[in-house]
């Protein structure tokens, strides 16, 4: 407890790479939930101890594949009702996870627990610069209220520059 400021949490985390289960990386984080403020996201400081696996090859391949599409990519219901994700859409699924991470961070309090339930819809938007742009409609499941809520979020991604959510 920090008087007049909020609640600060010190976390020791172990990250597991879902694509390489034997690989774990430790990190530490400090999370500050501001007192009373329902509209401001918690402050997060993260330190990664160790290295994340390089995905340069796969990133480049995905980037080139999407850039060379004639029609903009559109997809729905990832995973589908049976939990299936077509292999060519798996990178989109992973980018949706990143986007959901941003939305969850912006909307979390000490009394919420969000997970990405499904990518309801994704539409690629071609850009004049080198970023890939994906407009998502994500379904987020909140554990305490049990609500599944749709959220629109745009994600920009570039193999070297990484992912970001543009501020509108």
């Amino acid at each position, binding site marked *: 407890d920090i008087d007049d400021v909020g609640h600060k949490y010190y976390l020791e985390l172990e990250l597991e790479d879902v694509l390489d289960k034997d690989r774990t990386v430790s990190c530490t984080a400090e999370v500050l939930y501001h007192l009373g403020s329902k509209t401001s996201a918690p402050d997060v400081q993260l330190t990664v101890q160790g290295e994340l696996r390089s995905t340069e090859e796969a990133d480049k391949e995905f980037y080139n594949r999407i850039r060379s599409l004639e029609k903009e990519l559109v997809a729905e219901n990832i995973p589908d009702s049976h939990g299936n994700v077509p292999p060519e859409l798996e990178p989109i699924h992973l980018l949706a996870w990143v986007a959901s991470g941003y939305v969850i961070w912006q909307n979390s309090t000490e009394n919420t627990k969000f997970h990405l*339930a499904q990518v309801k*819809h994704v539409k690629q938007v071609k850009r004049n610069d080198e970023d890939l742009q994906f407009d998502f409609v994500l379904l987020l499941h909140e554990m*305490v209220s049990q609500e599944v809520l749709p959220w629109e979020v745009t994600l920009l991604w570039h193999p070297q520059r990484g992912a970001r959510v543009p501020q509108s």
Partner: protein
Amino acid sequence: MRLPVLLAALVAVATCTETFFGHQVLRVVPQSNEELQKVQELQDLEHLQLDFWLAPRRLGLPVDIRVPFRSLQAVKAHLEASGVSYSIMIEDVQALLDEEQTEMLRSSRQRAVDTTTFNYEAYHTIDEIYNFMDMLVAENPNLVSKLEIGRSTENRPLYVLKFSTGGTNRPAIWIDTGIHSREWVTQASGVWFAKKIVQDHANNEGVASILETMDIFLEIVTNPDGFAYTHTKNRMWRKTRSRHAGAICVGVDPNRNWDAGFGDAGASGNSCSETYHGPYPNSEPEVKSIVDFVKSHGNIKAFVSIHSYSQLLLYPYGYTETPAPDEQELHELSAKAVAALSSLYGTKFKYGSIITTIYRASGSTVDWTYNQGIKYSFTFELRDTGRYGFLLPANQIVPTAQETWLALKVIMEHARDNIY
């Protein structure tokens, strides 16, 4: 009804260019001239791109409006601000269209002819599961029988499988799956459990010894209306499909509708909420039928209600922080059950009372059964912990069922060995 004609027209359009994902069809029945005017006002707001399936004409006649996703908030706010009540007729137009298309493909799918060729590694429809039950009974008439304990709101039969080697009103174990319809791995696991019980009995191993002195009751599709809805309209539907007087939205959370701390903190009084407790305890026939069954049976010794997801084993209470009188025994039994589960594939489960482990929840199933004197009352939350959540890939059904079964056996054996 008008609906199929309109949908057919939409299918024609949809196959060309437009999609209708997230579009909802709202129904308003104006009860006063003021309400009628408010609805007519919507027709002039072109930017909302509303599509009136049934245009406003006069009082008392329904007005059906297809609302694009981006206009939903504005339309609902406009109606709510004027106190105009509406109901959601179609939650997601695109999903309905998609289902219409896949339904045509599905009707050519092969149906299993016996429980040996049944595909346990896939998710099934309610018809397929009900057919499975009939086949299981037909193949094992001396062990398995099917009981109808009631009917759902939409008049679907509520079936319980009874596994018994004889006796009269033997002490019994109850297992239910699918009370929350979107938790598909649970109904799928229930189907696997049913087959497993039969196999163990045939091979005189596993639960065969339990069946010598106890009966097992298994309700696989505990919320059939909700389950049908997850197949046809909204994969994320959790509640029942009841419509109560004065409620704006459809459905009651069947795991908040029991008479244990009913209506206390840990449930919602808002019908649009996923944790709506309903107008009064046991308002839902899906719940009442189990209550009636438990009370009239009178000899149930263990009660397990299965949910997903989170990987938890929970015991009472959810509605109060007061520890259950048997907390120590339940906690130790949970530890054993979780260890057995984990031994198969390393799946990690946490365990504890509902309120300390997951959240405060009032009116929940096992709080009621525990207060009825059923000491071994447990709730499971199966795989996973959020990566796929409700949309668990079908290839995880059998591993999930196998590991969960090990935990269930620990609980059943303890109940058998600790008569009370």
